[in-house]
């Protein structure tokens, strides 16, 4: 059985309308993968940067998977939320990226998007905040029913991921 280690961190995010951000993240895999140890989902701290525009979380990720097949390679999905000074939370973006499939150190920039409502909802959103959210987070990383959505681009999440693979070459896998 081959093993995969994902060792890295969610560094931070930039390009969003406001700065006080946090991120909920999770890793989704196919049926052949089994999580041996580590947390596969979590939520970062809320960061209000005092200098600059980028919010920094430095949230560590350390996960160990074992697998019987290449299908269902792990995908990291993210939801970026904004917390204002009153403690209310508002969704700022959804995004996903595949975990890199070659060993070594990788810098990944994950783009994010937010669902766009009707023009009445957009006007309400500029005054009151809030806005449409996905009912089920599966749509973040699956392409199945995406054609029904109309979305708008939001900022970027930066991640630094180190990948260690074990025994993949025994099965003839080149990566």
């Amino acid at each position: 059985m081959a093993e995969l280690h994902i060792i890295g961190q969610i560094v931070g995010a930039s390009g969003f309308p406001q700065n006080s951000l946090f991120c909920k993240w999770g890793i989704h895999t196919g049926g052949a993968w089994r999580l041996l140890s580590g947390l596969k989902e979590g939520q970062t701290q809320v960061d209000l940067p005092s200098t600059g525009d980028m919010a920094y979380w430095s949230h560590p990720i350390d996960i160990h998977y074992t697998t019987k097949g290449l299908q269902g390679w792990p995908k990291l999905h993210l939801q970026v939320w904004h917390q204002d000074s009153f403690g209310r939370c508002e969704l700022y973006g959804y995004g996903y990226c595949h975990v890199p499939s070659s060993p070594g150190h990788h810098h990944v920039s994950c783009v994010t998007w937010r669902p766009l409502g009707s023009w009445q909802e957009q006007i309400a959103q500029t005054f009151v905040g809030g806005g449409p959210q996905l009912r089920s987070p599966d749509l973040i990383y699956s392409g199945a029913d995406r054609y029904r959505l109309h979305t708008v681009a939001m900022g970027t999440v930066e991640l630094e991921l180190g990948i260690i693979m074990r025994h993949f070459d025994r099965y003839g896998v080149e990566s």
Partner: protein
Amino acid sequence: MTANSPSVFLLMINGQIEGANFPEYDDLYCKYCFVYGHDWAPTSGLEEGISQITSKGRDSPHRLVWNFPLEITFKSTNPLGWPQIVVSVYGPDTFGNDVVRGYGATHIPITPGQHTRTIPMFVPESTSRLQKFTSWLLGRRPEFTDPKVVAQGEGREVTRVSSQGFVTLSFNIVTKDMKRLGYDTTATETTHTHTHPVAAGFGPGNQTLSM
């Protein structure tokens, strides 16, 4: 040394905490410590340290330089719990009390070679404006009771922080026996090396065996 089937691999770290970039603060010192999983153990070197106090120079107004050495070697059976370095920076406030200016953490690089990392530093935020004022007045800012919390993922969702500076570290990494145990940390163009027993057991690199 067991030449045939090692059960542990080694990770040797030579590096330094080069310095910091804090636009608003001066006269800072830093402390570092390593956080690692249950399968890891340090075999030599120092796990913690405190640096000197440094000030900003005249010619490069934002840079603070520590040039503080890091030398440590770990052994492990499993990459889970790969070591992280936690850096905390402290400095004086307007009344002369020693307060925390930032916490930051990063994983030690997993591939052999030379690496530079710039990590953001953040401080916990006070929960209310009154508390922010009293902590400024009395010199008792919110801080983490154990800086190692910064290296963990659990429990972070209830913390509010403010990021306010960066620390630059550089590392030189050497690994031993990771390839023999089956771990690949570099991509496939070097796989031809593991059919040759010569120099196996030292850190993998692209330099060998162009025979």
